[in-house]
């Protein structure tokens, strides 16, 4: 347990100060009952108020230079994703090329944050992205359902890390979470966190996917956010993109509030990644408004906020071309993925 993960979970106790937090954490993760008491002690979510707030923030008008800034920022925040059964090395290499130079006709377009692939494609992506600064993210732990033995999940993670993944997107065991076995989920996240450590004791970033669409309530999303952050997640991520309900503005707003409050209490900053169903530049800009108004400017960077998306990039590029030329662009002027 002598890793940064456990150190982080212990962090609040060590540096807590006058928040009263140290008293809580000491016992919070000690037993299933204590963890349950803590998570169920979090304030309930006002669903109507939350959705209203997310909707109101979505109506902000972002124009001209602010829009140009937002589009470039959003491009630099994309985890360009391909998670299909039909992925081939060729397709992954194509995607990598696109991630490094999204618009071949315009060198001013920033590159994306990462390429997100299945573990067996990590080596291909790593090779294609060599020297570019674009990260390789790999899903792991029996993505997308998370229904496998812990040993299998850890082996999955280690293989991805060994192949060179810079970031690991793990899924939680929703079955255990919904059944109330919070400690089991907590320990699994910690174990995967340990599996992210490389031989040279550096570690791959850990993103924890909740699959909000399967958590059923906003209260659960809030609890899950705290659970993952306590267990040492570097990022909390909304969804796999493989179920009917993916990232929603309200769910993301809730998670942004959680990371904001977590930093206030512990001093540890955690990133947020909405994924799935974000397809237009307009949607992306709405999310950026949510980030700025909820978590604050500190999160407005690829280090702390990401979009899990594939078709979003093309729409951002088309909007960028529109801003530059004044003409509406079309799908004929971006690459087909």
């Amino acid at each position, binding site marked *: 347990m002598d890793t940064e993960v456990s150190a982080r979970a212990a962090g609040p106790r060590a540096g807590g100060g006058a928040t009263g937090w140290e008293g809580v954490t000491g016992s919070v993760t000690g037993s299933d009952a204590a963890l349950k008491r803590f998570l169920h002690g979090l304030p309930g979510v006002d669903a109507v108020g939350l959705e209203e707030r997310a909707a109101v923030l979505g109506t902000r008008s972002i124009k001209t230079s602010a829009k140009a800034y937002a589009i470039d920022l959003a491009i630099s925040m994309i985890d360009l994703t391909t998670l299909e059964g039909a992925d081939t090395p060729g397709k992954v290499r194509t995607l990598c090329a696109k991630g490094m130079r999204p618009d071949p006709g315009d060198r001013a377009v920033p590159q994306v944050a990462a390429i997100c692939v299945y573990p067996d494609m990590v080596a291909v992506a790593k090779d294609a992205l060599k020297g570019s600064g674009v990260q390789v993210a790999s899903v792991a732990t029996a993505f997308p359902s998370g229904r496998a033995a812990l040993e299998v999940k850890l082996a999955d993670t280690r293989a991805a890390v060994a192949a060179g993944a810079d970031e690991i997107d793990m899924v939680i065991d929703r079955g255990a979470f919904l059944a109330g076995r919070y400690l089991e989920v907590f320990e699994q996240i910690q174990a995967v966190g340990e599996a992210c450590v490389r031989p040279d004791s550096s570690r791959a970033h850990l993103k924890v996917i909740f699959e909000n669409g399967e958590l059923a309530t906003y209260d659960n999303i809030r609890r899950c956010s705290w659970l993952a952050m306590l267990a040492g997640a570097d990022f909390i991520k909304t969804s796999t993109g493989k179920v009917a309900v993916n990232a929603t503005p309200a769910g993301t707003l809730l998670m942004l509030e959680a990371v904001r409050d977590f930093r206030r209490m512990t001093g540890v900053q955690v990133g947020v990644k909405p994924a799935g169903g974000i397809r237009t530049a307009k949607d992306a800009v709405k999310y950026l408004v949510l980030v700025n108004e909820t978590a604050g400017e500190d999160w407005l960077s690829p280090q702390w906020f990401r979009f899990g998306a594939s078709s979003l990039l093309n729409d951002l590029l088309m909007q960028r071309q529109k801003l530059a030329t*004044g*003409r*509406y*662009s*079309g*799908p*004929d*002027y971006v690459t087909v993925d």
Partner: protein
Amino acid sequence: MSDKSSKQEKRGGKAARAEDAEQADAVVETPVAAAPTRLSVFKTYKLYVGGKFPRSESGRVYEVTDSTDKWLANAPQASRKDARDAVVAARKAVPGWSGATAYNRGQVLYRVAEMLEGRREQFAREVADAEGLTPDEAAAVVDAAVDRWVWYAGWTDKIAQVVGGANPVAGPFFNLSTPEPTGVVAVLAPQESSLLGLVSVVAPVIATGNTAVVVASQRAPLPALSLSEVLATSDVPAGVVNVLSGFTAELGAPLAAHLDVNGLDLTGADAELARELEISAAENLKRVRRPSAAGPEDWQADPGVERLTAWLETKTVWHPIGV
């Protein structure tokens, strides 16, 4: 017929009421005991984009008057963003509509004619108001519009034989040319002929499998907006025809510049606007159909196939013989 004329009288009364409340009080119809006064229901005209009837994104409307400058209704004044949305809807509809069999497209177009036939009275009224025609003249215009749909419905599965075919070549090849739709066509509908002219420019675009973004006549958009209700109820897939009302110059500019529009019909543009838009359309080599140089076209005349072939590309296939 008597039923129809009484309806029109009643409508006249309503219009007067809307216009001048004081006068309207004097026009109160013969008092009948216990007959409640019925409030008239005004129609909110809306755009037609992607199979739905939205208001303009901008929230704007403008006043539409009849040929004698009497107020008829407020029509939505579409903005460039409405134009953009319409192009997106039209693009989305291209694969389905161009991939449908010509026979199927013919049936759908014929269905439009059937639906229009069933609403002849409404359209006759709107055309009479818009163009200042007598009821009989307006009815004749509507009949001609119905016939125009039928004419183009018949052409859907015949145009390929007329403009395509086998080409004799100097080699052991079958050489076959077939016409294919251009894609998304932006249509500036004629200004003076609000229904027959509109049908005459829209039907040939969609008959061959293109999809259309139509800017209705600026002065008389109501028949076009009502026609979209006919299209919505006659098996025309969503997005195949999108109807915008507003200022032709304002909507023409973004459509002509749009890189995802493949063709531009300038029938409803004046010479100066047409020149400007054609320059703009050159950026991505859109097919452009210029307005007639000889003034307003005669919409009652035999249309021929020229408007069909304007929005077709020719695909030629070489196939070796004896393999």
